[in-house]
């Protein structure tokens, strides 16, 4: 399927580049609806990649690329369940989103995240599956999960650890602070910084350049230098599930979900 228009995302193939566009309001929070359509996308990748050389992931939301997991849905849907069912439902969601992320990570295409604005938590993790991150200068990256008593759960830390130095990983993870595109480029996370609003154009220009290269060579090079950290990814799911079941996380999520402040509760 070369074209798809869903409730949370759409895709099309333009000049040999698959363009996946996130468009769920307010800022592409990843919940069940997005997961289902991402699963549909990775299933369709198999046929699309035969005639494509690149994948560009971007956002149609002016607020940013993606604000992360849909914490409101996570809280609302887990609350009524007994603990064992809550854990089973969470683990199922994590297994499914990891399967999507792993497929994107290993896709035999050169993948580019074209970023703007808020790129937090699960959104940051989605960007980290890509081979290149092209960010407009107003982008902001953050792993805020420790503020809620959690760690990132969509594969972020193993992928960040694969890509950049451990000291930077610790800084982002343990402080929960956000960094801008210039800082992200200086630590090696972002490959190119564009002018405001120009990341997608730069990503398309980059994809056009990649088209000149032999596809089999590009795929071989990618698989040689970008191993998927399967062991750490499995451990991440276990740690996330252990942390999630604590009452402190429940309380933090409730406070976040119930907040009506301009600056939602984040310690």
């Amino acid at each position, binding site marked *: 399927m070369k074209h798809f228009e869903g409730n949370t995302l759409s895709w099309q193939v333009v000049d040999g580049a698959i363009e996946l566009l996130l468009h769920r309001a307010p800022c592409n929070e990843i919940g069940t609806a997005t997961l289902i359509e991402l699963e549909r996308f990775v299933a369709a990748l198999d046929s699309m990649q035969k005639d494509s050389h690149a994948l560009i992931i971007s956002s149609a939301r002016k607020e940013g690329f993606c604000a992360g997991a849909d914490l409101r849905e996570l809280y609302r849907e887990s609350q009524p369940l007994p603990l064992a069912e809550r854990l089973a439902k969470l683990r199922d969601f994590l297994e499914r989103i990891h399967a999507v992320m792993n497929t994107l990570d290993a896709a035999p295409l050169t993948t580019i995240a074209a970023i703007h604005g808020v790129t937090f938590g699960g959104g940051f993790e989605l960007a980290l599956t890509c081979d290149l991150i092209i960010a407009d200068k107003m982008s902001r990256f953050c792993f805020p999960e420790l503020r809620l008593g959690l760690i990132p759960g969509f594969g972020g830390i193993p992928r960040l650890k694969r890509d950049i130095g451990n000291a930077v990983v610790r800084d982002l993870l343990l402080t929960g602070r956000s960094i801008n595109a210039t800082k992200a480029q200086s630590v090696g996370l972002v490959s190119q910084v564009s002018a405001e609003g120009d990341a997608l154009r730069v990503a398309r220009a980059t994809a056009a350049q990649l088209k000149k290269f032999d596809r089999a060579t590009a795929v071989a090079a990618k698989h040689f230098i970008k191993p998927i950290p399967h062991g750490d990814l499995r451990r991440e799911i276990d740690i996330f599930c252990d942390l999630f079941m604590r009452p402190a996380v429940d309380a933090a999520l409730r406070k976040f979900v119930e907040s009506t402040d301009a600056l939602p509760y984040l*310690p």
Partner: protein
Amino acid sequence: MSTLETTTEEVLTLAAEHFKVPRAQLNPSDDFFKTLGINSLQALDLLTRLEHHFHIELPDYELQGVSDFRTLAERIQSRL
């Protein structure tokens, strides 16, 4: 050399221009969430613009509880 007064003035000017509010309507003691009518995502946008403008890094946890322009300018000044 920047002083707190010049830094505050630059913060007010930048906020007024970006959020399209007349500069004369903004005062150092104003709550910028209320005066600019912005939410948390727009506050992050303002933070990023300020970081670029002043060529600094300002961790967002330093702005926890900060809602007026003068205190925001003090935090920036401490990084210059």
